[in-house]
């Protein structure tokens, strides 16, 4: 069975790299004694993949991974068994069946929503950004890019910015780059990952089937 699992990471877990996150989940699945499927070969590993890697320093309230099990597991059981053995800063929110023929989660990424908490008020900066036709800045490699088309939604309330950013295989915007372009450092949390269904962006947990 394929399962889609939604999780949060806060506190210490925010600073865990993608590779270490994979290892942490692999070990948790082993501790949970869930019937995970192993790959063939000399170095068998758990068949599991994440929807979208998170950068070091970014927390999440809604990220996803998919896991393959040897047999059927109820969502409730996955949630309970995993939460019983995970470190306190990583929690499972939901879990359910992923359709056998569905593309991998990482191939379904469309956009991701973030909350960025700045030091100062961001309302004016957000207004200016939304009115602009293009907004040039430098990406993390120093290359100049136009980030305006990559920002799908943007709203500011005092020092808190809510933004939905392009996050597909075609193009993706790192929220730290947006933060840098708008006003410097911010504490960043990803709040949801979306896929596209019939032209609408939906949270990935709606991929869950009973």
């Amino acid at each position, binding site marked *: 069975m394929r399962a889609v699992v939604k999780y949060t990471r806060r506190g210490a877990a925010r600073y865990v790299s993608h590779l270490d996150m994979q290892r942490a989940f692999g070990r948790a699945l082993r*501790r949970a004694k869930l019937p995970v499927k192993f790959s063939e070969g000399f170095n068998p590993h758990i068949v599991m993949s994440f929807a979208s890697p998170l950068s070091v320093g970014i927390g999440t309230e809604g990220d996803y991974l998919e896991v393959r099990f040897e047999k059927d597991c109820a969502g409730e059981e996955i949630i309970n068994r995993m939460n019983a053995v995970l470190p306190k800063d990583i929690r499972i929110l939901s879990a359910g069946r992923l359709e056998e023929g569905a593309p991998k989660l990482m191939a379904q990424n469309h956009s991701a929503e973030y909350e960025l908490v700045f030091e100062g008020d961001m309302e004016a900066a957000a207004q200016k950004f939304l009115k602009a036709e293009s907004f040039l800045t430098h990406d993390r490699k120093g290359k100049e890019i136009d980030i305006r088309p990559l920002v799908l939604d943007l709203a500011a309330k005092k020092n808190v910015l809510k933004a939905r950013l392009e996050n597909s295989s075609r193009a993706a915007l790192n929220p730290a780059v947006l933060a840098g372009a708008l006003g410097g450092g911010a504490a960043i949390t990803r709040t949801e990952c979306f896929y596209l269904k019939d032209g609408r962006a939906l949270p990935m947990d709606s991929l869950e089937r009973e």
Partner: protein
Amino acid sequence: MREFATGEIEKPARYMGGELNCVYKKGAPVLFALCFPDIYEVGMSHLGSAILYKILNAREDTYAQRVYAPWTDMGARLAKAGAPLCSLEEDRPLHAFDIVGFNLSYEMSYTSVLYMLDLGGIPLLASEREGCPIVAGGGSCVVNPEPVADFFDLFVIGDGEEAAGELSGLMAAHKKKGFDRKAFLLSAAKLDGVYVPSLYRPEYNADGTISKIKALLGAPEKIQKRLARDLNAAPAVTRPVLPYIATVHDRCVLEIMRGCTRGCRFCQAGYIYRPVRERSVGALLSQARQVICATGYDEISLSSLSSGDYSGIGELAGALLTEYEEKKVSVSLPSMRVDSFPPEVAEKLQHVRQTGLTFAPEAGTQRLRDVINKNVTEEDIFEAVRNAAGSGTRTIKLYFMIGLPTETQEDLLGIADLARRIRDEAAKAPREGRRARIAITVSVACFVPKPQTPFMWEAQDTLDVLWGKIAFLRERLKIRSVKFDYHDPRLSFLEAVFARGDRRLSAVLLKAHASGCVFDSWQDCFDPKKYDRAFEESGIDPKWYANRKRELTEIFPFSHIDYGIDENYLKKELEKAYAGEGTPDCRKGCRACGLEKDGLCIQGGGR
């Protein structure tokens, strides 16, 4: 200080805590900081610290918390913000603990101890520490703690399993009646194996050697090491803290035995961890189950000085391989002769992929191996190579030492010759499934004379001589598919200085620390010029410590620290070394090293 901007410092997870199995508790009267003077990834891999974490936190009166050395980027950030170094569990400043315990396993971590004390807001000198935590040290370097004696209030000599709890209990009692530093240290000095350096005064001869070490205020003349006699009764780690980030030993580590019976004459561990004590196969299997259950680790490794000598190795290996095959947990076993395993285990071993063979002939000729009592013959080496090559090994790593007593050019040539013949032997193995030749690495370390070994009276080769030998070997080891690397002789030189040094060296360490020395064992941090200046400004000649052959009558700075080894036994071993005479493994009969006297040895001493 636990919020980090993107890219501000390397690996912030090192400073966050919050790992699985980390202990949280409230209301314990004694706060005990378990410090390791290196970065998180190294400290988290140290088994001894994990054992103490478990033992201390099992006590109701104690809360043990971990503190590691912040890497230089984080250290600079703390210093700039004027924020103290804190524990991972409670984010508590180091100066707000009752006992601050350091593991001392390597001489080149001394400056990192000072760095941590400094960042933790604790005065470096024990004599200036009124109103501050008690700073304690333990680990293999306390065989001679004298170079750092001025920085520590006390040391625990030998196994720490029992003494750590006793110290905590003593602290709880003293806090209850109103803590007085002097009174606490005087009672601590009465605990077995606890050495309070301020209660001892070394006196010196005109030539700089020690004339006597005076015990003050009724402190014992000799401090005898503590010994965990029965490892099965000693607590083993069953719920290790599981790091988020990859550490050096990121797996389930089973300590199968402590001590070694081989008696290699250069090896300090072989002497100070005597006698050999084994843990039972049953206890180890149960421990492995608990660790795997509590961590989800997918790898188990065995830890000891010489795992092939563990009497239950075949049984243990067989049981682990059988139990964990299905659970997809890999088991790393010591490289040893397949015929020393029972047939059913040997059969299973065929299926265990060997990533690499590591072998330590230590010396290039049989003559020199006899001198150092490394009881390995060329046939043993070739046998291991043939086995490894046959089972698909890609790499062979060979460890040698240079600068050993009596070494000649012939012995150095022997290293190159042996490497060449090992390569030829490995090449004979069938090449099916292997793309390339087996890669051989010859790794050379410089001999460091260490306390409590038969070579503790020996001079270390001078730096010039060591560099010369390395250059010579580099030329001779220009062999196809053989790689040569070596341990920095400048580090080995300093190790030799501190290993047998005295209290006067604390001035050097203070100066080295003040000039920024830290993480000296890290290549990109080590700055030998800063040490040179520190020695010069202190008016101390390091060569007097490293390169001077001691008289057999000389009083060592550590002569009051008693590891149970009879000095006359060591002298006899030294004599036999020069005669090229071996001393057989003590499992085959007691050699009367001294441990048999007080019934310390359980290896059948006195037979």
